[in-house]
């Protein structure tokens, strides 16, 4: 075998190096589309998710306040495309506990994971709704009197959750349940506290804060009251909703209209 000239050596080394880079560096997702999105891929993605990701993101992918892992079933804050999700899984999120997936995990597996995460959401345009959103909007601001408590795009009351983007993380079924059975799922932020001070007077309001040492409530007049826990006699939590049920107050068709309107409340999707 003849001697390899320095230039040829350099060329071979460069080729070897680039081959090394190509084979050992994780790839970067691009918007070429996800080829691994069949029902089988989604199932495999789910299996991988439950095994590798659920410790932080939860078995139901709804996130975990303790680990800071976000809910993956609604709108994602850090990615708006499959490629974006792919890149987050591959590269991690610096400064957070989200580590990159092991470089030996094949791209196909990551794409299956992307497909599974994608399957947790749906295209809102594909949802067929019985009601009419415009009629729902009129009800919201009129007969149903929702806006006296709820704010949308800066208009409305403060005695209930801001609903400007309620359609992003709620299904039509969720919204219907919230209207006809408001006690079913009350965010702890909208629980109430009934505080009895040492003189025996009682004040009740929304649970704006409850921590180990202090309480803050907002009363019916939207006034805030803060209490160190060690200066009150006692307090109770009321974990039901202050919202009345609309079951029977509105007709079924009116409820459908309201659901259609609420479901339409979302940010514009960036194309």
């Amino acid at each position, binding site marked *: 075998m003849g001697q390899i*000239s*320095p*230039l040829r050596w*350099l060329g071979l080394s460069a080729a070897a190096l680039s081959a090394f880079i190509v084979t050992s560096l994780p790839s970067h997702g691009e918007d070429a589309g996800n080829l691994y999105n069949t029902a089988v891929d989604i199932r495999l993605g789910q*299996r991988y998710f*439950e*095994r*590798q990701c*659920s*410790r932080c993101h*939860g*078995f*139901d992918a*709804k996130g975990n*306040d*303790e*680990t800071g892992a976000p809910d993956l079933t609604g709108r994602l804050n850090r990615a708006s495309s499959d490629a974006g999700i792919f890149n987050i899984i591959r590269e991690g999120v610096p*400064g*957070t*506990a989200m*580590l*990159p997936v*092991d*470089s*030996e995990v094949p791209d196909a597996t990551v794409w299956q994971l992307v497909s599974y995460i994608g399957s947790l959401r749906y295209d809102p345009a594909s949802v067929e709704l019985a009601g009419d959103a415009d009629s729902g909007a009129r009800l919201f601001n009129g007969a149903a009197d929702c806006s006296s408590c709820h704010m949308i795009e800066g208009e409305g009351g403060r005695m209930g959750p801001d609903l400007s983007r309620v359609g992003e993380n709620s299904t039509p079924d969720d919204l219907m349940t919230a209207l006809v059975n408001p006690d079913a799922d009350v*965010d*702890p932020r909208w*629980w109430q506290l009934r505080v009895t001070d040492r003189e025996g007077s009682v004040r009740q309001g929304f649970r704006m804060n*409850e*921590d*180990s*040492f202090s309480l803050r409530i907002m009363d019916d007049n939207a006034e805030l009251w803060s209490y160190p826990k*060690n200066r009150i006699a006692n307090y109770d939590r009321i*974990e039901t909703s202050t919202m009345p049920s609309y079951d029977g107050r509105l007709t079924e068709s009116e409820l459908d209209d309201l659901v259609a309107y609420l479901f339409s409340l979302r940010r514009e999707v960036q194309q």
Partner: protein
Amino acid sequence: MKKITLAITCLLASWQVTAQETAQEQQFSTVITPAFTPVTWERLVDARNEPENWLMYSGTLDSQRYSLLDQVTTDNVHQLEMQWSYQIPVIDRAETVPLVVDGIMFITEAPSNVVAVDARTGREYWRYDHEMPDDLRICCGRNNRGVAILGETLFMSTLDAHLVAIDARTGNLLWDVEVAAHDAGYSKTAAPLIVKDKVVTGIAGGEFGIRGFIDAYDPETGERIWRTYAIPGPGEFGNDTWSDDSWRTGGAATWLTGSYDPDLNLIYWGTGNPGPDWNGDVRLGDNLYSDSALALNGDTGEIDWHFQFTPHDVHDYDSIQIPILADIEMDGRTVKSMLWANRNAFFYTIDRANGEFLHGKPYATQTWAEGLDPVSGRPIRVPGMAPTYEGTLVAPPIVGATNWYSPGYSQDTGLFYVTSFDGAQEFFKRDEDYEEGERFTGGGGRYLQPMDAFHSSIRAIDPTTADIVWEFPIMPRSSAGITTTAGGLVFTGSADGYFFALDAATGDELWNISLGARVHAAPMTYAIDGRQYVTIASGNVVYTFALEE
């Protein structure tokens, strides 16, 4: 062609020079700490009697976390003021308990670094950044909980499952040994324990189908002296408590720090869950010695006795809690006890000389057992509580009634203190095949209620009866450890970012400060020139407090 060769040569040469310069800079740019008296084994045995120093993760070999410092008391604790804070540069959560030796503090950081600072000011002397591969297998964050010291050498576990020895004066690396293969799922997060002339250390990786063990190393050379597996091999007692070959991948990680009794020459160490965590079908039997307390001979590492808290666990109820050793008066006699509030929601008082179960009771909400057998202490299971494919609601949840965060004990009150959680979770089972280096958990869990709906508290337990004497409610769910002092105080933290002091006798709130980020660490206390300091990590910051001068 020559030009290209020359250019490459120059490039290589300049790279070599730069690398040499960098190495030299690293070698000589370190700032040496002030001299301190080398920490001998005799000092470690008698650590309680030099309360100005905090010489090991749990303060003393009995892990009581009880300090004799009494300048800060129930009467003046409300006058505590922040003296300094140290910002950890790598953003992750700090689970560190610093050591203090003669005014020098050693703080570990994520992922596996250590920094020496002036304990008066928090200003840095030196730092050691551990070089880390990028294919770590870690279950639960990039944590490191602390170092051990012997002589003038620090010993630290690293996430890539190494044990390193570092010169405490300069931060220079003395040796670095691989304890186990990180790419097979092993990792290390806990502070080692010095036992006489050995560095004793455990291993993490219970979610990756590892086989747990406890090791002892020569502090001079890093040579391994003994290894005791937490899962017996073929022919050894207990191997038949694993069906088929399941012992090979059975977990039983030993991922926290143990305790030591010099009189009995026994090391006490907890073991973690059997693997896969939530699918017990593939590992029928009691699965010894998972979820157990092991008592090991202090010289040989041989198992003297064991006590298994949760045979055939299917809920991830690790028993890696730090064993508190205390001599307590029971039935007219002094009992050398081991006190243990387990992740499975039961509190146990055990005779630490022989492992005999003395008594135990639930200290937090639990639905999985009807109680403990009064003689053996073995749980009497409630049928139908194992995870299923559809989900089974069980208390406590996966994180447990307590977990890795240190409990405390006060020699003044005789009470045991634990951070407890009354939660419940749906447990799921999945079928998984073991693949080396991959997670091997066989399921998972989910909460059906918001976290705020659950109850958390600091509970004081009388170890002579296992009764709860008082409780102080906190907002869920704390992962802070507990430290007690001769000033009559219990120091701890909460998930909502408070650091606070309670009256050790009554549980009355005496002082609190909002530090703005979750407390994932245990407090420690020390003194310099007669002034007592109290230190806690919260978020990514280490805070130190003292009474105003």
